C-alpha cells in the first residue's frame, strides 16, 4: 500500500500530543492511526466496518453510546473542515454539533448501499455550512418533484457495485500524487479559487489549473459513465 505523505503523519502525531494533554470526557480509545506497519488498509477497512455497525445501532436502537463513539471520531474532523472553510472555532464547533445531531435525527435514512458513512456525514456538514456561512438553503434535486427522472432500476448486484465504486474512488484519491491532491483539496475543500491557490503556493496559475485537471482526470477513471453531459 502507498504510505501516507509525511505531512499527515506529523500532523497526526501533533494531534495525539494535544489530545493526550486535554482532559478526556470518555475513555473510549482513539482508533489506531492508519499507518500501523502491519496493514493500513486492513485497519481502515476494520474502522469502516466498525463505524457502520455503530450506525446500525444508532438507527435501530437509538443507541447513545454508539452515537458518542461516532461523535468522538467525526466531530473533530467536521470542526476542522468547517474552520478551513472560514468558520471561527466556536462557530465550527456549534456547526459540528448540529451536523452530528442531524446524523442522530436522520439515522434511519442512512443507507450504506448508497454511500459510505463519511460521504453521508460530509454532505450533512456541507449543507449546514452552506446554511450558515453562505446564508442560503442549498438547491437540491427532489425525488418527489413531478419532473424528477428516477434512477434506473437497480440491476442485481448493483448495490454491491456502488459500494465497491466508492472504495475505488477513495483509494484513487489516496494514490494521487501529493502535488495534485493538495491542490484538489484546497479547491474542493477550502473553497479557494485557482487564483487564491496560485498566490498561496507561489505556483503559476496555469500549473494550478492543469494539476487539478490531472487530478480530476485520474479520479474520472473511477467514476461511472463516459458522457459528461457536454
Amino acid at each position, binding site marked *: 500500500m502507498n504510505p501516507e505523505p509525511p505531512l499527515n503523519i506529523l500532523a497526526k502525531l501533533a494531534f495525539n500530543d494535544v489530545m493526550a494533554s486535554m482532559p478526556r470526557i470518555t475513555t473510549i480509545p482513539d482508533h489506531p492511526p492508519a499507518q500501523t506497519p502491519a496493514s493500513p488498509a486492513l485497519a481502515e477497512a476494520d474502522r469502516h466496518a466498525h463505524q457502520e455497525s455503530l450506525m446500525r445501532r444508532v438507527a435501530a436502537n437509538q443507541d447513545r453510546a454508539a452515537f458518542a463513539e461516532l461523535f468522538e471520531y467525526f466531530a473533530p474532523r467536521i470542526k476542522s473542515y468547517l474552520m478551513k472553510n472560514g468558520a471561527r472555532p466556536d462557530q465550527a464547533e456549534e456547526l459540528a454539533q448540529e451536523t452530528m445531531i442531524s446524523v442522530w435525527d436522520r439515522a434511519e435514512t442512512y443507507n450504506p448501499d448508497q454511500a459510505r458513512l463519511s460521504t453521508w456525514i460530509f454532505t450533512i456538514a456541507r449543507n449546514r455550512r452552506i446554511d450558515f456561512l453562505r446564508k442560503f438553503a442549498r438547491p437540491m434535486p427532489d425525488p418527489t418533484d413531478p419532473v424528477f427522472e428516477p434512477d434506473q432500476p437497480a440491476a442485481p448486484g448493483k448495490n454491491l457495485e456502488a459500494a465497491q465504486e466508492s472504495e475505488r474512488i477513495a483509494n484513487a484519491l489516496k494514490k494521487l500524487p501529493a502535488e495534485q491532491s493538495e491542490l484538489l483539496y484546497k479547491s*474542493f475543500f477550502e473553497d479557494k479559487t485557482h487564483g487564491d491557490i496560485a498566490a498561496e503556493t507561489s505556483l503559476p496559475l496555469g500549473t494550478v489549473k492543469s494539476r487539478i485537471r490531472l487530478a480530476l482526470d485520474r479520479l474520472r477513471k473511477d467514476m461511472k459513465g463516459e458522457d459528461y453531459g457536454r
Partner: protein
Amino acid sequence: MADKTTTDTPGRIGHNSSAFCEEKSYEALLMDYAAGTLCLPLSSIVAAHLTLSPASREKVKAFETVGGAMLENNCDPVALSKNCLDQVMSRIMPRCAGQNSQSACTETKIGGITVPSSLKALIDCPIKKRSWKKLQDGFEIYTLRHDRHMRYMLMKLAPDVKMPPHNRKDLEITLVLEGAFEDETGRYERGDMIIMDGESQHAPRADASTGCVCLSGRAMPAKSKIWFGFLFIPFCRNSRA
C-alpha cells in the same frame, strides 16, 4: 436586488467578480456543487440538471465520495471544547416514528413551463414584471434573474427555428427543459446541461417537431454591444467589478 451572494467575503467563487465560476467546465461545475462552493444561481441550475439527469447524479455522488474521503483522511482533527460531547448528548432527542417522512413536492411552473422545483431559487429576486418577450418570429425570452455576473432567462424556440448567431464572449450555461436543439457541436435534449466558454459564434436550431425550451445563463457584458442590447442597457455597468 436581493442577491445575498454579493455581500459575502471577496475571493470566494461566485462572489469575486473576476473569479466568478473560474473553472468553466461541466465537470468543475459539478465538483463545486458537490463541494458546496458554487453560488446560489448556478447551484439552482445544477440541481435542476440533476433532477432531470440520473447520470449526472452519479457523478455528483462520486465527488461527494471524494469529500467524504477527504473528511476522513485529510482533515486533521481539531480539539473540541471540554463539554462539547456532554452538550450534544443532552441535545439529542429520542426519535419518533415517521419523523423523517417527506411531504411530496408540487409541480413548479415558471412562465407557464413546468420546471424542476430547484429553479424557484432563481426567481427569488425582485423583477418588476415577468412576461414572455418576443425577440423575433418563433423566439421568445422570459427573464428570470440578473445580477452583476449573469443574466438568467427561459428561451422558447418554435419548431425548426434557428436563433440568430450571436458572439459569445464569456460563460454561457444552458439547460434543456423541453424538446431539443442542435448546433455545430451536436444535439442536446431535455435534461442536458451545456457549459460554454470563450469566444465563438453559436447558432442553435430547435428540433423540427418539438421545438425547444431552455434555461440560459449568460455573463453580463462589459459593454452593451450585443445583439439584444436594448434589453440590457438599463442594467449594464461599465466594468464587472
